[in-house]
């Protein structure tokens, strides 16, 4: 069981990765050391042991971090039992166990052993707080009522309690809790349908209408800016636009009317919720996002709730100041921004590296440029953000606005933060990574290939384009992987170049020209910061932070694996059977 070390080269046999760990274990196991390892060998193996230690530390950090995120994040959506408690001070509570801890020492109660528990009691609208600490020794009775219901609502967070009435235009169901529950479940599909219809009218139809009105308004403004409204053609155009707006406004009035009716109809279907201490709250059925009786759920039911919560998290927009709902816009923003950044940075970096390595005459100037590029990688990212804001947003974007979209001023189009400028800022930030990686790759292309190409009568450009660059592609992709990983995780420069807490519109939608690079966007990294540090209900949003982190890591891994796949395919082309 001796570690297989190649002592002449001081390297650990690459064929047997496990030897590294074994070395580590053996080097610290006492009897092994006293029996076999002479002092001289200890000294000779010291560097190897050090490498093992460093690897172990790195592994520990990665495993620990991933473990923490996975444990804290993945458990979040699992439905937990609702506990009903009565306490010695006549309090009655219904809630989920959130966290347990020993009572701090200065709390002079029952010695060090005493525990207290943080219960999430929900019902923020009536209790004004989501959480309550209860000392374990104050609890008189504890039970899990089967009819207890978790109601996830559009507003005010979850409600933990019971359902007393279901009111519909056809009549009211009350009394027997089983019947009420069944009635509520019956009403849910139609309520969901009504919500869908209302949301469609609000988002799609009215949104499109607004967009159309805005187009006409801008057209009128354009005519005004041209300054000569007296010619008959322009008068006609003006009148046409004004007429169109009038027609659209009439249509809007009709739609708003029908929307009002739909809403009134929807409001007629209501549910009355009761808390454990008898307080009541009435709300429309359509305001319920999800409803379940956790103490009664079968294992399959729990999985279903878990899956539904996960689906909402990944595919739905956020609610309640980002602390509930999903992160879909942030996922989309992150991916789109990272891809845009890659599209911008790879050509830039590769061309720069080609110029530096293949064309430029090596000398002090080129060395200076190279040093400058490398140092650029050390500039704090926020500095890039400030540069991006000044250069891209204000200078370039402002100029575009002045000459291309003057009719929209003073509202900026490209003149403010946007996904385009954020991507370009990050591209600038990551360009050194690509340049360095590409230069390394170009240097590794055998000179024989260049000579062979030139000897075939190819020009320098043809040689670079057809032979050298393809051979350097794997290296370029390595650089791209590093750049994407850095770019996707970056937050500071984005905060001032286009990321917002809540973007009303996505950079991609059904309105022409479909991709709106001038829009602001949401980003998972910023979402973590915002939810974790800027929200008022930190205890409740902690789980969201872990889940968002997990998602961000997942996205980075996905992007990297894709790039690695491509790199693997390219590499295969350069493998030879026998050379």
């Amino acid at each position, binding site marked *: 069981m001796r570690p297989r070390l190649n002592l002449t080269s001081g390297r650990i046999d690459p064929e047997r990765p496990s030897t590294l760990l074994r070395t580590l274990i053996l080097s610290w196991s006492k009897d092994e050391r006293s029996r076999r390892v002479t002092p001289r060998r200890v000294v000779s193996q010291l560097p190897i042991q050090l490498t093992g230690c460093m690897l172990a530390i790195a592994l520990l950090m990665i495993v620990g971090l991933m473990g923490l995120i996975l444990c804290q994040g993945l458990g979040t959506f699992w439905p937990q039992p609702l506990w009903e408690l009565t306490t010695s001070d006549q309090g009655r509570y219904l809630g989920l166990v959130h966290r347990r801890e020993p009572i701090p020492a200065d709390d002079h109660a029952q010695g060090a052993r005493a525990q207290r528990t943080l219960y999430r009691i929900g019902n923020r609208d009536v209790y004004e707080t989501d959480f309550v600490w209860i000392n374990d020794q104050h609890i008189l009775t504890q039970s899990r009522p089967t009819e207890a219901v978790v109601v996830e609502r559009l507003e005010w967070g979850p409600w933990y309690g019971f359902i007393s009435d279901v009111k519909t235009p056809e009549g009211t169901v009350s009394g027997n809790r089983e019947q009420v529950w069944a009635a509520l479940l019956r009403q849910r599909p139609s309520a969901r349908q009504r919500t869908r219809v209302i949301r469609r009218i609000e988002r799609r139809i009215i949104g499109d209408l607004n967009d159309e009105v805005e187009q006409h308004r801008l057209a009128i403004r354009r005519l005004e800016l041209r300054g000569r409204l007296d010619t008959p053609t322009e008068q006609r155009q003006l009148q046409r636009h004004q007429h169109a707006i009038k027609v659209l406004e009439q249509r809007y009035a009709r739609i708003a009317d029908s929307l009002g009716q739909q809403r009134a109809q929807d409001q007629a279907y209501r549910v009355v919720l009761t808390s454990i201490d008898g307080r009541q709250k009435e709300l429309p059925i359509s305001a319920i996002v999800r409803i379940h009786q956790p103490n009664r759920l079968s294992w399959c039911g729990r999985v279903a709730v878990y899956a539904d919560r996960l689906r909402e998290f990944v595919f739905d927009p956020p609610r309640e100041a980002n602390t509930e709902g999903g992160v879909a816009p942030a996922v989309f923003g992150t991916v789109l921004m990272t891809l845009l950044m890659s599209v911008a940075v790879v050509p830039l970096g590769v061309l720069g590296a080609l110029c530096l390595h293949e064309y430029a005459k090596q000398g002090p100037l080129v060395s200076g440029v190279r040093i400058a590029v490398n140092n650029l990688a050390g500039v704090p990212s926020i500095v890039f953000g400030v540069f991006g804001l000044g250069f891209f947003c204000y200078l370039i974007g402002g100029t575009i606005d002045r000459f291309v979209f003057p009719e929209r001023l003073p509202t900026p189009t490209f003149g403010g933060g946007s996904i385009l400028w954020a991507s370009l800022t990050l591209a600038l930030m990551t360009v050194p990574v690509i340049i360095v990686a590409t230069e390394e790759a170009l240097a590794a292309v055998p000179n024989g290939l260049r000579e*062979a190409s030139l000897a*075939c009568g190819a020009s320098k450009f043809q040689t670079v384009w057809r032979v050298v660059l393809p051979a350097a592609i794997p290296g370029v992709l390595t650089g791209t992987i590093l750049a994407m990983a850095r770019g996707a995780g970056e937050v500071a420069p984005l905060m001032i170049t286009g990321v917002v807490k809540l973007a009303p519109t996505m950079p991609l939608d059904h309105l022409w020209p479909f991709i709106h690079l001038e829009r602001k966007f949401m980003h998972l990294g910023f979402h973590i910061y915002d939810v974790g540090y800027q929200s008022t209900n930190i205890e409740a949003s902690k789980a969201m932070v872990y889940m968002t982190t997990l998602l961000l890591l997942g996205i980075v891994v996905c992007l990297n694996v894709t790039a690695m796949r491509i790199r693997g395919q390219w590499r295969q082309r350069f493998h030879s059977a026998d050379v």
Partner: protein
Amino acid sequence: MTDQPRLTTGQTVTIRRPARPPAAAAGEPPETAIAIDALSVWYGKVLAINQVTMSIPERRVTALIGPSGCGKSTLIRCLNRLNDLIEGLRITGRILLHGQEIFDPLLDVIELRKRVGMVFQKSNPFPKSIYDNVAYGLRVNGEQRRVVLDRVVEDSLKRAALWDEVKDRLRTNALRLSGGQQQRLCIARAIAIEPEVLLLDEPCSALDPIATAKIEELLYVLKERYTIVIVTHNMQQAARVSDVTGFLLMGQLVEFDATEKLFTTPRDPRTEAYITGRFG
């Protein structure tokens, strides 16, 4: 130097491909393909080639032998100006390819390299398919027509005696070929653009005897169409394949003569010492 080349003034730079005269009859002195006149090459301050004058006969194999570092490779790389890439290189003297000065600043070096093909010591096929390797020279010259490419690829591979081995896998990566096949592929790539001269820089030094024998046979056939200059370490090889041999020592051309003569009755004692293996 019996057939001193006519030195032109370098005024004409248009590429002239002379119509090829029929192969010289046996015994008749061959025409000069490349005339090297007082060529000296410096790498910075180091003199690599010292006043070399020689004339390389048309459609013959000319071998350059000599110990390592004697300037053989430098000399052969001057013939297609591949040395241009090296910084700090300085050349004096003249080289005339069919009477045309190749160091003429007005001459298009790319055109020159199309006329003077080269095969290197280490086989260096591009990491592309066999087909794309052979078609590379044509493609960079703008040839796109599939029919032409197909014909030239087949033709070149046949002439490089590789066709039968690879005709069923033209689309596979050239790097999967064996070392000897790769070197023959490089020859096929070089002759695909129909050069006038083919330069071979120790083409067999990394190959086993069987692959070497194949290449040598190939040279024997190829010299009917091309002027071949081969640099070699292996004196037996030079004796076997070449018609004319030059012996280089410390950048100087010690002796340049018909191979038979040079190997049997060398005029210079240094040549004799080298070919009998007393140094080098």
